């Protein structure tokens, strides 16, 4: 009898997380990362991360060099912004962030084509630096989570003392369709990623690390395993090849799949002793410590209805149109530009919108208008929700403006992955309703 109960409990705990299986469309997975040269002009919004916007420290007409700090971090959860070209500050204006939909300041820099670098931090071996020095360097380099959410990395590296971190999960899942930037990084810069991971493990002082990769990237899994076999820390780091499912790359889902732990509502993974980092972030971390370089460029997958989908190493602030032209331009009558993937990406108002730190992909597609029909209460969204929520209820409440009730149904837990909208047979844009509900609820709380 007793054994029976135990077995039942285990079955229940091991319940696979839900999700969907969209067509992968990884058009550019076999294309090497190409460097793109210098942009003529860059527009750098002063809030490319989650947290307080940075404060500009340059004026119009100032000469700046590549890597020079142009905006200072404001507060703990904030990072500085660096110039990504050398040249002259053309103007400081306001721009509308297509990601957060807020008006914010932006610095426009005209490139002089020389790409003169500012004097960098001396490249150092992390063994010669203290923990505090490493964290300070990471903060000064402006490193944020490059998976798309852009959470400042130095915050993740300083967990409160009452919450010890026992494991790090390296997120190489890249579950979004179309995007291949992390995949290429793992193939071409695996060593840097592992060195970055080593720094991170030393700073946090944890003993275990998992590199999570979806099994639709067998070459990346093989490459990382090979590199690890040469590694001097046997047994500390393991590569986990996981069954492909969207949204496995969401940190809370990933954590549950690998360690079986669930993050409490409204908390960070820190709460259960885990830090989740994207592979791109680790590469940036390696650059900041070993090379002394601040974060000025990243790999962007340009894909969808372009002539030749590519993975491009591009400086931030470059208009998306230039990158699309480098891939042979738009094919057919595509008229929609998305920063990010098709599931979680944000539609941009124009084709020349500048890329930001969180822009891991530029997706060009044809817009399609699908009329929304009525909810038939089939429960497809409930079944597909990876966080085990009830998205249909959120839509109802938001339509009726019962925003307070949303809280009782744990709307904070929603990661806006879009599985519900993907699976909805009535074409209801559930995520948009949820976003409205969340922001209205936040307004109510402010009052």
């Amino acid at each position, binding site marked *: 009898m007793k054994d029976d109960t135990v077995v039942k409990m285990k079955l229940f705990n091991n319940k696979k997380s839900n999700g969907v299986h969209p067509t992968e469309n990884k058009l550019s997975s076999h294309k090497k990362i190409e460097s793109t040269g210098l942009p003529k002009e860059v527009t750098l919004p002063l809030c490319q991360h989650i947290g307080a916007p940075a404060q500009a420290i340059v004026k119009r007409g100032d000469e700046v060099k590549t890597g020079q700090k142009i905006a200072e971090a404001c507060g703990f959860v904030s990072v500085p912004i660096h110039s990504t070209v050398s040249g002259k500050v053309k103007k*400081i*204006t306001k721009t*509308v962030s*297509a990601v957060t*939909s807020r008006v914010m300041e932006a610095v426009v820099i005209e490139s002089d084509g020389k790409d003169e670098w500012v004097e960098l931090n001396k490249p150092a071996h992390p063994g010669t630096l203290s923990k505090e020095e490493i964290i300070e360097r990471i903060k000064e380099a402006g490193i944020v989570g490059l998976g798309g959410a852009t959470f400042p990395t130095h915050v993740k590296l300083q967990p409160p003392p009452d919450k010890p971190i026992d494991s790090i999960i390296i997120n190489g899942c890249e579950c979004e369709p179309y995007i291949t930037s992390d995949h290429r990084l793992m193939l071409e810069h695996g060593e840097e990623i592992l060195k970055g991971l080593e720094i991170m493990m030393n700073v946090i002082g944890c003993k275990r690390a998992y590199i999570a990769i979806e099994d639709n990237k067998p070459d990346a899994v093989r490459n990382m395993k090979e590199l690890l076999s040469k590694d001097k820390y046997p047994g500390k780091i393991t590569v986990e090849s996981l069954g492909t499912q969207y949204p496995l790359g969401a940190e809370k889902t990933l954590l549950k799949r690998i360690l079986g732990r669930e993050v409490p509502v409204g908390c960070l993974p820190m709460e259960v002793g885990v830090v989740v980092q994207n592979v791109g972030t680790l590469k940036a971390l390696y650059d900041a410590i070993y090379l002394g370089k601040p974060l000025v460029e990243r790999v962007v997958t340009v894909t969808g209805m372009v002539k030749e989908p590519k993975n491009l190493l591009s400086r931030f602030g470059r208009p998306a149109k230039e990158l699309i032209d480098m891939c042979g331009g738009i094919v057919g009558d595509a008229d929609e530009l998305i920063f990010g993937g098709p599931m979680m990406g944000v539609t941009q108002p124009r084709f*020349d919108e500048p890329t930001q730190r969180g822009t891991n992909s530029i997706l060009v597609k044809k817009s399609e208008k699908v009329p929304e029909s009525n909810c038939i209460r089939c429960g497809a969204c409930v079944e597909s929700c990876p966080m085990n929520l009830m998205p249909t209820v959120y839509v109802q409440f938001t339509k009726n403006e019962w925003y307070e009730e949303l809280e009782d149904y744990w709307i904070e837990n929603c990661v806006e992955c879009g599985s519900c909208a993907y699976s909805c047979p009535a074409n209801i844009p559930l995520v948009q309703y949820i*976003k409205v509900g969340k922001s209205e609820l936040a307004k109510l709380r402010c009052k």
Partner: protein
Amino acid sequence: MDSTAILVIVTLTLVGLGCGLAIYLANKFLPEEDETLKAAEKVNQYLPGMDCGACGKPGCFAYARDVAQDLETLQATPCMALMNDDDALGKLGQSLGVDLSGGVRKVAVIHCTGESEVIFDYQGVSTCKSSMQVSAGFKKCPYGCLGLGDCAEVCPVDAISIDREKKIAVIDPERCIGCGLCVKECPNDLIELIPVEMPQYLGCNYLSKKDIPRREKCDVGCIHCRLCVKAAEGDEVKWDDEKDLPYFDPEKSLPAPDSIEKCPRNIIIPRKVK
């Protein structure tokens, strides 16, 4: 006759008699109707009776009951429709034996003329709040009216109509009862209640001090030139430094015809005052 039929007739007669007796006894011995309910009914006949819910109560009768119990309710959560109706307010004051005059009638205005250009084809959920989630709306100006009608939806008297071509909401001042439901609804905070005597208002809400690249000001938006302040003789126009826009004091409601004429963008909109 069937014995069952007799039984039924006798039983039903007895039940009827019993109920009649109960009613008689209740009328005789139970206390009369609650005094507060009577008072609430008296107040209720002067309320607008639309059950719009703008006061925060479930309906007009619930509000009337609160007013009957405590007159302060009129101050704390005013029924704007009642406050704007001098006639009804006077009669209510008479029946309650207090002086309720002195309220200023207010109507809603929209601080936007809707001239800003549409820059992309928005295809999402058709409400202002939803479209604000996508790069601050589909118009050039991120502060302006989007005209998807969140305000018109809640208006209890259908005073707000939508100009589909310009994508802007238009408020009919004749119909507006000043309940203030639309003020809470607008995601850009464009709607304000102003005294009906106010001779003009500003038709713009452009808050940024600097231009927004690729999202230039709309063709009629405020350019922060301050000509209106310079043209004013007294203090009918002031400059709101926080918003960087002109400000007309609703307390004084002074006319500023020179400023209206001087404005290079013609966005100080004169109102017909009766």
